[in-house]
């Protein structure tokens, strides 16, 4: 440490909150080598919300696993504040693609499990758990077991579990995929509100392009075989997060065309006209 000036300079000049530097990852599946990730470069700043979209199997979950520190066997570097990620930590939490609740713990205890290593007192933990169950609208189900929940409810518990530690980085692997359209929209707003409010840095993997555009500050588009970043599209303020805004629809169509899906066939202006009619 050479003093505050040097640190702040370094912070501004070189290290991002999260930096994925030229990361490649190979698996061997049945004796064959699978290049799951190839030369991934992505820098995420504090408070940013990054969406990742891409075809199934292009390595999105793998990338999140590496950021978590669950797997350190890869080429390249993943750094938080300039320090290489060596192991999982409570600064990074995840909502897995499947809810991964422990079936023998009730909802409350599942959420509380995330606070085991927090060093907080029992009363504080209880309050945090209650707050976060309220946040995802499941206060009534605190004593229910996962087997008694619907898929969407279980996923909401998983979201509460990921948020309850107030992590600096929130990694979301298709967290809303199992939800009905209405709950999904509500939780998108909720997620956005929480992330803004807590200053959380979020990386969201989703198959829902609308969701990616609505929530992301940037959209990372990945292509498979090998898993790589095709492009990164900024979501400008002009898009304004209004789903019926022509800019919103234009950006959504651009993302879709990057994904190889033909455009929706609806001209943005025509759609707007239809909606206001």
């Amino acid at each position, binding site marked *: 440490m050479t003093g505050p000036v040097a640190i702040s300079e370094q912070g501004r000049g070189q290290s991002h909150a999260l930096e994925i530097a030229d990361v490649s990852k190979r698996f061997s599946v049945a004796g064959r080598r699978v290049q799951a990730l190839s030369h991934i470069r992505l820098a995420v700043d504090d408070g940013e919300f990054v969406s990742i979209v891409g075809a199934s199997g292009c390595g999105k979950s793998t990338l999140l696993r590496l950021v*978590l520190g*669950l797997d350190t066997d890869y080429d390249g570097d993943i750094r938080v504040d300039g320090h290489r990620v060596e*192991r*999982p*930590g*409570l600064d990074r*939490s*995840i909502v*897995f693609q*499947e809810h*991964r609740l*422990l*079936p*023998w*713990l*009730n909802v409350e205890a599942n959420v509380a*499990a*995330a606070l*085991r*290593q927090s060093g907080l007192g029992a009363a504080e933990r209880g309050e945090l758990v209650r707050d976060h169950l309220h946040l995802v609208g499941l206060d*009534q*189900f605190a*004593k*229910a*077991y*996962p*087997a*008694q*929940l619907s898929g969407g409810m279980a996923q909401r518990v998983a979201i509460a579990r990921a948020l309850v530690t107030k992590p600096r980085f929130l990694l979301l692997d298709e967290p809303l995929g199992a939800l009905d359209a209405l709950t999904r929209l509500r939780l998108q707003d909720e997620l956005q509100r929480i992330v803004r409010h807590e200053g959380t840095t979020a990386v969201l993997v989703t198959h829902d392009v609308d969701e990616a555009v609505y929530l992301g500050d940037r959209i990372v588009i990945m292509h498979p075989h090998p898993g790589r970043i095709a492009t990164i599209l900024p979501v400008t303020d002009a898009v304004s997060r209004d789903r019926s805004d022509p800019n919103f629809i234009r950006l959504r169509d651009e993302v879709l065309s990057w994904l190889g899906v033909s455009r929706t066939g609806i001209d943005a202006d025509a759609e707007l006209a239809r909606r206001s009619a």
Partner: protein
Amino acid sequence: MSLITIAGRERLSHTAPIGPPPSPFLGRHLRPLAVPIALLAIWELLAHAGVADPRFLPPLEEVVARGVAEFSRGGLAFNLLASLERDLIGFVCGSVAGIALGLAIGFSRLLERLLGPVLLVHRQIALFAWVPLISMWFGGGEAGKVVFIALAAFQPALINTWQGVSGIPRSYRELAEVLTFGWFDFARIIAIPGALPQIFTGLHSALIYAWTATVGAELLLNIAPGIGGRMNEGQHLFHMDLLLLCILLLGGVGVVFNVIAGSLEHRLLRWRIP
């Protein structure tokens, strides 16, 4: 809580019975008794029809009379208690040791590699093959008997606990890593509850094995108060009714153990709702 029961009711409506309605007479409670009752009836028939020599197969009522007499004198009850006490001590020692070692092996790769093969070979050795060795080492008295019973309970408790822990899905181990659990939290929150169904299966077997071993020890090692001792007596004095009474008693205790274990299991594993 009310919402939970609503959720439960929804589930019920999904699994509405499709097959024919259960027969009202041979209901859930009577069906398991059908075969034993039939066997008793056949026994009674054989004894009275003069097919079987009554010295070898006394009729059922004689055995019952013997039972009434024995219990009213307190002799058999005393022996039964002696057997149960021996069984319980052996069961507790053996299954506690089995669970402890099973957890250790389940947690530690090193221990698993060191001890795993040995224990799998150990399983192949018939339980009663240990009797001569145990009687040499621990004597044929109380100590030898309890060691033998403990060994019987140890085996299933160990194997099931070990396999229960090592069968915890990788995704849960990953979750433990993400939540930065140390080994204690991993054991308490993930491994032990996750392995609990199989630990119970092990304890259930251990209970039955220990009871079998109790009678075996009493028959094969030194004579001491206990059901096995009375069976020896029945054999030597040619008291067939006593012998049969003891066998019925052994079966009865086994059934009671089964029922107790089953209901405990059901109660403690409530989370397995579906």
